[in-house]
């Protein structure tokens, strides 16, 4: 991976990795630190990183960095996701989104990561397995379990409303 490819990778994937991490950690500054560390690691190992697989490498490093961070800090601050104005403008959509965010927060770290990797980045089970270090079957089982849990939460909330 050349300097140019690395900087192109920053330009293309920095936001993606940041979204993935910040949604998991729900702490912007910590997410920035994790993203910075991940890119720093990729820069140090750029000789071994294939430019074609840079995104996968980046997410792998960032994921493990995030797991380390969670274990180390044990600190999760729930961030107020939405402004008051946006709530007024599109209340139904935001309500669903908010409910989903809450449901996501109820998932375990691994399940949450799997859902985000699947939905945000569209990775396959196999690719998610490579990133998280799980087998394809484990990814499938965990992800399906998480999805059912999310669905059940939506059903429960709708029934309450």
């Amino acid at each position, binding site marked *: 991976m050349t*300097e140019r490819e*690395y*900087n192109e990778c*920053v*330009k293309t994937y*920095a*936001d*993606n*990795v*940041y*979204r993935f991490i*910040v*949604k998991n950690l729900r702490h912007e500054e910590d997410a*920035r630190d994790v*993203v*910075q560390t991940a*890119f720093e690691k990729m*820069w140090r190992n750029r000789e071994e990183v294939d430019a074609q697989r840079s995104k996968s490498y980046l997410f792998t490093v960032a994921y493990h960095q995030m797991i380390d961070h969670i274990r180390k800090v044990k600190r999760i601050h729930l961030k107020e996701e939405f402004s008051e104005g946006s709530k007024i403008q599109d209340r139904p959509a935001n309500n*669903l989104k908010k409910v*989903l965010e809450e*449901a*996501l927060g109820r998932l375990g770290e691994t399940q949450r990561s799997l*859902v*985000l990797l*699947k*939905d*945000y980045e*569209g990775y*396959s*089970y196999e690719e998610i397995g490579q990133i998280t270090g799980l087998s394809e079957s484990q990814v499938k089982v965990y*992800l*399906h379990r998480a*999805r*059912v849990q*999310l*669905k059940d939460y*939506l*059903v429960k909330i709708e029934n309450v409303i």
Partner: protein
Amino acid sequence: MNITRHNYEEYFILYIDNELGSEERHQVESFVQANADLKEELDWLLQSRLVADDSLVFDNKEQLMKISDAESIKTTNYEEWLLLYTDNELTAEQKTTVEKFAAGHPAIQEELDLLQKTKFEPEQALVFHNKELLYRKEEKVRVIAISWRKIAVAAAFLLAIATTAFFMINRNAGGVSAEIAAGNSPGEKILPVKPGKSTNVTTDQNPPMAAKSSETKMGRDETIINELLAIRDKKTAGKEKNSRPSPLLIKEDAPVVADNNSVKKKTNDLPEPKYNPNVNKGMGEDNPIAKADIIIDESLTNSKENIQAPVVTPGNSQSLNHVVTVASVESIDDTDAAPGKKNKLRGFFRKVTRTFEKTTNIKATDDEDRLLLGGLAIKL
């Protein structure tokens, strides 16, 4: 193949295990017919064979089967198909099959819609600000290969510069001292120093100065004169700030007062008094101190008179007309320049050392306050 009563057992076993060809099997059967007593033994062996029990079957083989086509979606396993559909893990054909299946079952369709709602969309507004923090630029290390020839040329160049600088400093220092010795009076005649040129040395009685005349101590006297000139140069250095550095010059017939006994003071590094007449107190006539500066001041102010024929007047009736040779003048310059140069260099090195120690916090001098230079490293 020849079956006998000695080797029939091996053939019987091969026959039972179905390891013989049709011709060999036929030979075994013929042998048994010919030897009826062995037929019972073959039957026993045939009965020892195990036969598979077809009644034993594995139920629910569907659980082990892999989903290979969309036709296998049923009301019993549709959930996994819906999840795979939601995770976009199906082919286009399989997706179509699932959609058709769900369309035929309203409850399943509702569940599929619900699962579709659990999908997260990335928030485009959430971006990593200050991406400049992440950008990197490679630091390319330039290695400049220097051959030994280039090093040699550089060393020779430095040596030449150092040598030139050394002589330049020496010449400047000599020029200053000579000019100081000559004075800066207007109209003063300044002559270049020539080898062999002699100057008279005067001594004066008042202020007391002693110049012991002794022809046998001529060399010693010259040394003493040099010392006195050095002292005088030190004193006049402050006054002569405006003096221009010039080539090695000396004022013609510049009166110089010397004391042949003042050699003893050479070892004393204390600053010389300028106009202190008490300097000679208690020293007696045998050890007078020259008052070179006073005479020199006169020479500076009355240069015209001094140009003529400076008279040497012994202070204590011991007249001496010392001749200061050019060599001695040069030695004056040398003795004069050396301390000044040393002081300049010392001051320079002290400044450098202090700066180095401030910036690096490393003591650059040893216990005896000596600055150690060296350690030049060149990567090849």
